[in-house]
């Protein structure tokens, strides 16, 4: 168990180092250097100015040295300065994290609370009208772009309430937060809940066919007891593992949803940084996202070990 944990942590470090190298190189295969782009966009062509920027940003140094500077900075919490705002990157990123975290948490909660029960119902009532309806619902959830669903919800708000729930300033109370984020969370979580529902359904159908379910029935247990005490726990296990994958999936939805609803979170900030070609920001944001995804995957795996006695106690 401990050995496994150490192995996993080491692999995690390797993966993250890999991500850092990949993103570092990716942002430097752009033709011309960042100083050119900055000057182009600012409309300045003063060579002296350019040389100064190049030296200031350390762009004249060899790539491995630049990489080393960034990486050692990462460990000290020194992420460099934004090209655009000229503020330290960390000061730009940190305040945005809680906003995205709340939105993601709310969306994931929504996705699980809707997806798992509906998936179970769909499986238990397999091939009934209800099952077909839920399957088509989940398939449309997977087919709708999250930003379009967001826009549709905005349209509905305009029609029914005459106003648009767009983020203007940070709400003060928890209730206000909830009210502010509920609609965006639903629009981004819909797709995830559709996915979770599909997975739960197929996993549940698989489990309901297994021998131990028949054994449970032969004991005289009621259908409810068989479904919830015996089958559900077994069916949810594989769904847990996908929640890790799901976080990565969710992030794509967060990017567009934060854009639609004008929420100043990390996800939208990545797009802004890319638009502004603020490469130190992009580089660090991508690292941040990778760390979150990898950590969530680790937590999910550990959770799985706790829930499944076959892994916890060795097969």
């Amino acid at each position: 168990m401990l050995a496994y944990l150490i192995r996993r942590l080491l692999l995690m470090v390797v993966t993250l180092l890999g991500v850092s190298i990949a993103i570092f190189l990716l942002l430097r295969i752009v033709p011309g250097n960042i100083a050119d782009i900055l000057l182009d966009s600012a409309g300045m062509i003063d060579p002296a100015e350019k040389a100064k920027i190049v030296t200031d940003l350390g762009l004249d140094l060899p790539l491995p040295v630049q990489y080393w500077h960034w990486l050692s900075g990462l460990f000290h919490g020194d992420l460099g300065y934004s090209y655009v705002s000229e503020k330290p990157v960390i000061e730009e990123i940190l305040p945005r994290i809680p906003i995205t975290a709340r939105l993601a948490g709310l969306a994931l909660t929504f996705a699980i609370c809707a997806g798992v029960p509906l998936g179970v119902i769909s499986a238990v009532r397999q091939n009934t009208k209800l099952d077909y309806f839920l399957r088509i619902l989940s398939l449309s959830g997977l087919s709708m772009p999250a930003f379009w669903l967001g826009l549709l919800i905005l349209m509905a708000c305009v029609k029914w309430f005459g106003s648009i729930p767009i983020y203007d300033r940070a709400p003060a109370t928890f209730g206000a937060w909830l009210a502010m984020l509920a609609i965006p969370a639903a629009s981004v979580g819909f797709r995830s809940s559709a996915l979770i529902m599909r997975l739960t359904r197929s996993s549940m159908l698989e489990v309901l066919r297994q021998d131990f379910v028949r054994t449970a029935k032969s004991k005289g247990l009621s259908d409810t007891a068989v479904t919830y005490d015996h089958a559900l726990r077994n069916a949810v296990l594989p769904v847990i593992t996908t929640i890790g994958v799901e976080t990565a999936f969710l992030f794509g939805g967060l990017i567009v949803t934060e854009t639609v609803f004008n929420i100043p979170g990390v996800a939208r900030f990545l797009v802004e940084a890319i638009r502004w070609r603020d490469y130190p920001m992009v580089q660090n944001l991508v690292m941040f996202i990778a760390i979150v995804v990898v950590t969530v995957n680790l937590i999910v795996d550990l959770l799985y070990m706790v829930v499944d006695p076959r892994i916890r106690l060795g097969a």
Partner: protein
Amino acid sequence: MSDIGYYARRYPLGVAGAIIMTLFVLAAIFAGVVAPLDPFTTNAKASLAGPSGVYWMGADMMGRDVLSRLIHGARVSLAVALGATMIGSGVGAAVGLACGYVGGWFDLLVQRVTEIMQALPLLVMALVITASLGPSLRNTIIAIAIPLIPTVARVIRSNVLSLRELPFVEAARATGMSEWRVAIVHVLPNTLAPLIVLATAQLGSTILTEASLSFLGLGVPEPYPSWGRMLSESAAEYVRTAPWLVIYPGLAISLIVFGSNLMGDALRDALDPRQRD
């Protein structure tokens, strides 16, 4: 051909999906003939005109016909989806086959790279790649294809590893066939079914990714009409004033993805009996 009737009864949803996809493909191929108006002609007088006899689905800010732009947009959407899926599946299959065969350090290396790529959400990776390469139709296809590679490689790799142990492959090897010939003649054709299932399943997510990239303004650039960009142009401000600019492009995206998902599900049921409900 009598099979068509059988499949229609066995997989009614799959056939419905195939019909939807066929309609979109036909619209894309014959866009020039089908579209009622020219998708690029601007008309200041028709700016933000609502749906009417001339502009069935209304007109955008520059007075261009929304329906015609949607029909031409199918070309972009399908070109990106098919291009990215084909490149992603092709490269992924080659890498997976190589992993299953060469094994050793190559396999380990590819697995590490796969893990690195899976640490990043598809859209984030596509965004960063377009940011690096610059927005163009070709680069959008590449940016979406690259993140597909690891998933395909993984599936094909495990498939190859189990196929290699099967008796008929052993037998082929025993007759003195070279390892590469065995791979091409016996193993590769047998990975085709899972590859097709996977590629179809990914078609929908490539379309969605293209739409998202374009919506964020980092996808296929002008003059190509892209559904995602039509939505970003119209976004929040038109929600109040010109709902047709929001509804129809989104409907087109959802419908084509829905069709490809239906088709993907049916193909999976038909070709991959292990996953059947």
